[in-house]
């Protein structure tokens, strides 16, 4: 190469003073930078707005209002036979427990000397969550010998009371509400002073199960989280081996002809198919034809596997392609068989890319709701913890995004807050998965 030196002069252009054409080019570049900055700025602005909205709306769901109350377990009501036989005790339904709890809180109100216009224990109904009766009943069935004692319980406050402590409910907003009156809110203030009503961290929101419309305060995401977990297991165990095997064959072994081209085009097209289509397919094939149970995470996982497969195949093929041919040639050159070259040399080098693709595919599947609508995983479903691994796959369950969708539809505004809270948890999961993908890539990636 020779060093070229610009001589200047010639047509009158100067290096120091830029001519009109250069100015125009520079100006257009500056403009382009501004557009770019504006685009990034707009992106960041919307991200901040979105995150602020999610956090400010949802953070309340992680706090819950509790009532500490000693409940007298009246033997005359709970064990009429007097023999402490669990089967007899079970005959008393939750409706038999409700008056005891109301009486206990009313007693507390009187003990504290709180002035109120209410005159009877039944007026306490508006403060107490309907879940309290079931909580006490379960405890009594587990400890039948304690009937007759006075036991301290930490029960949930009703969703309106909870909303009042979180500033969602005010005296104006409940003016027309038939579930609660202003007097109840005065009472709540007094009980809060006395330390009987207090707000605390809500572990049940993260680990609990869904609740019915009338008990927003009790609803949690835990069981649907398990549903999502079991679905992801199915997706991982099926999509990863099938996807990787398919890509290795297509990339390393298959002849390049019209048939493999046809398959390739189809895989790319499948990746773009709307997920609801896989839901319809799942309903027809897995439930109506194969008679798998409805609402089961197994079926959800199978449907999401179909959806995730193309993503995994495409990313696996890309990372196999990225392994330099020299590695294959060297392996084959020292006498390795094609299979040895692939499994001993190419696949380990492609692994970080494959894992990243798989995790991104899983994250996408984790956030998917539409196909679950059709296979019965949306509704009032996730109420019992599955007992055991098989039940985890087979017994009806929901999934995190489906649960959030369900909550967003419910009438009680307390569910709205929980839907946002659910989004926070879902985002934490997605973020964690993406971080794992980045770490894996950083740690194992090799460059040539």
């Amino acid at each position, binding site marked *: 190469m020779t060093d070229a030196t610009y001589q200047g002069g010639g047509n009158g252009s100067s290096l120091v003073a830029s001519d009109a054409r250069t100015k125009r080019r520079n100006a257009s570049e500056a403009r382009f930078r501004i557009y770019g900055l504006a685009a990034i700025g707009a992106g960041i602005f919307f991200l901040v707005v979105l995150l602020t909205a999610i956090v400010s709306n949802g953070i309340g769901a992680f706090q819950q209002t509790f009532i500490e109350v000693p409940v007298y377990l009246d033997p005359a009501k709970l064990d009429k036979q007097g023999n402490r036989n669990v089967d007899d005790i079970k005959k008393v339904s939750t409706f038999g427990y409700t008056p005891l709890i109301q009486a206990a809180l009313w007693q507390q109100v009187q003990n504290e000397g709180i002035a109120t216009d209410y005159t009877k224990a039944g007026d306490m109904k508006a403060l107490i969550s309907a879940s309290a009766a079931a909580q006490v*009943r379960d405890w009594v069935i587990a400890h039948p010998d304690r009937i007759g004692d006075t036991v301290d319980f930490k029960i949930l406050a009703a969703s309106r009371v909870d909303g009042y402590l979180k500033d969602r409910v005010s005296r104006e907003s409940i003016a027309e509400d038939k579930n609660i009156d202003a007097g109840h809110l005065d009472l709540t203030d007094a009980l809060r002073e006395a330390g009987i009503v207090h707000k605390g961290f809500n572990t049940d929101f993260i680990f609990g199960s869904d609740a019915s419309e009338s008990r927003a305060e009790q609803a949690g995401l835990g069981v649907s989280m398990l549903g999502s977990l079991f679905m992801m297991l199915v997706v991982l165990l099926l999509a990863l081996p099938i996807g990787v095997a398919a890509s290795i064959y297509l990339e390393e072994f298959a002849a390049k002809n019209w048939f493999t081209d046809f398959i390739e085009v189809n895989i790319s097209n499948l990746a773009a198919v709307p997920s609801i289509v896989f839901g319809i397919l799942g309903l027809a094939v897995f439930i109506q034809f194969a008679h*798998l*149970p409805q*609402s089961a995470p*197994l079926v959800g996982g199978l449907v999401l596997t179909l959806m995730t497969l193309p993503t995994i195949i495409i990313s696996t093929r890309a990372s196999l392609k990225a392994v330099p041919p020299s590695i294959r040639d060297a392996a084959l050159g020292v006498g390795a068989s094609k299979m040895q070259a692939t499994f001993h040399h190419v696949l380990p080098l492609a692994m970080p890319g494959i894992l990243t693709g798989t995790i991104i595919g899983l994250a996408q599947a984790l956030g998917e709701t539409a196909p679950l609508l059709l296979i019965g995983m949306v509704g009032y*479903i996730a109420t019992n913890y599955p007992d055991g691994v098989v039940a985890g796959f*087979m017994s009806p369950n929901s999934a995190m995004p489906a649960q959030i969708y369900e909550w967003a539809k419910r009438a009680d505004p307390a569910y709205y807050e929980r839907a946002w809270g659910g989004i926070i948890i879902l985002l934490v999961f997605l973020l964690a998965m993406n971080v794992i993908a980045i770490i894996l890539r950083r740690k194992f990636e090799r460059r040539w």
Partner: protein
Amino acid sequence: MQSVKLAASALAIAAVSASAAAARDNVQVAGSSTVLPYASIVAEAFGENFDFPTPVVESGGSSAGLKRFCEGVGENTIDIANASRAIREKEIKACADAGVTDIIEVRIGYDGIVFASQKDGPAFTAFEPADLYNALAPKVLVNGEIVDNPYTKWSEFNADLPDVEIAAFIPGTKHGTREVFEEKVLAVGCEITGAMEAMVASGMSEDDAEDACIAVRTDGKSVDIDGDYTETLARIDSNPNGVGVFGLAFYENNTDKLKVATMSGIAPSTASIASGEYPVSRPLFFYIKKAHIGVIPGLKEYAEFFVSDEIAGPDGPLANYGLVSDPELSETQGMVADETPMGSNM
């Protein structure tokens, strides 16, 4: 070797799925999204008080639920369909074709349909059934003649209503609620205003006139909401003049955002609906496959628990949530106890 392990796990999954078709031990319910809240309250209490697992309740609409109900008999079909309207003849036929013959119809109570507007907006306290017809029908009676609906404001046909643009958000045609709205509001308004009579007089057949009565104008003054009440609420929230159609229970949970409209001077409440003073209400049902009773554990117990006095009675949790309890509940209880299928007493 890794791939061998993965293949083994895949086989394990397949083995699990092979044993899948084993007995189902939970009651499976699907259907109306209006009935869903009530069904979920019952299912929850059922799970707490009995040793059976909590029933699974899916939503999706009355028609979708009844369609799945009529797919056949067997463990991979649902046991109960919730519906916000009575089952139709052709659905009974579809059921019979698929082998679902003995169906037990259970009426759980009544649901009020209310009109509500934004809390801070103008008050709609002078609704008469005729007003909604005048506001929403494509053709109305003006000075004895049927003309294209000329009204753009409520006050144009009822001076007591606010002087604001008509903006109504009504349930879409896939909702069972729409049918009630057509039948109890539009058709009644059509009769009252005399439009029905005028249409027949102008040479329309009775059937055509009935269809014309329940049509809704398409010039944007009335918007069909295909989503849930939460979507209607969002529309009302952003439109101070909007009037939306809600279920009574939904309104009662959102009294801080909504102002209820009275109908003929009567405000909707469980009491005024039970007494019949408030005109717009409809019965809610669920349908049981008799063939599944005794096969699916807990099915009959769930149905009996649902209609028991402590659940569906006037002081039960359902009434508390907004259901208008059925005065003839004890007959329904007897019917469920005897497993009387539809049509056996007619």
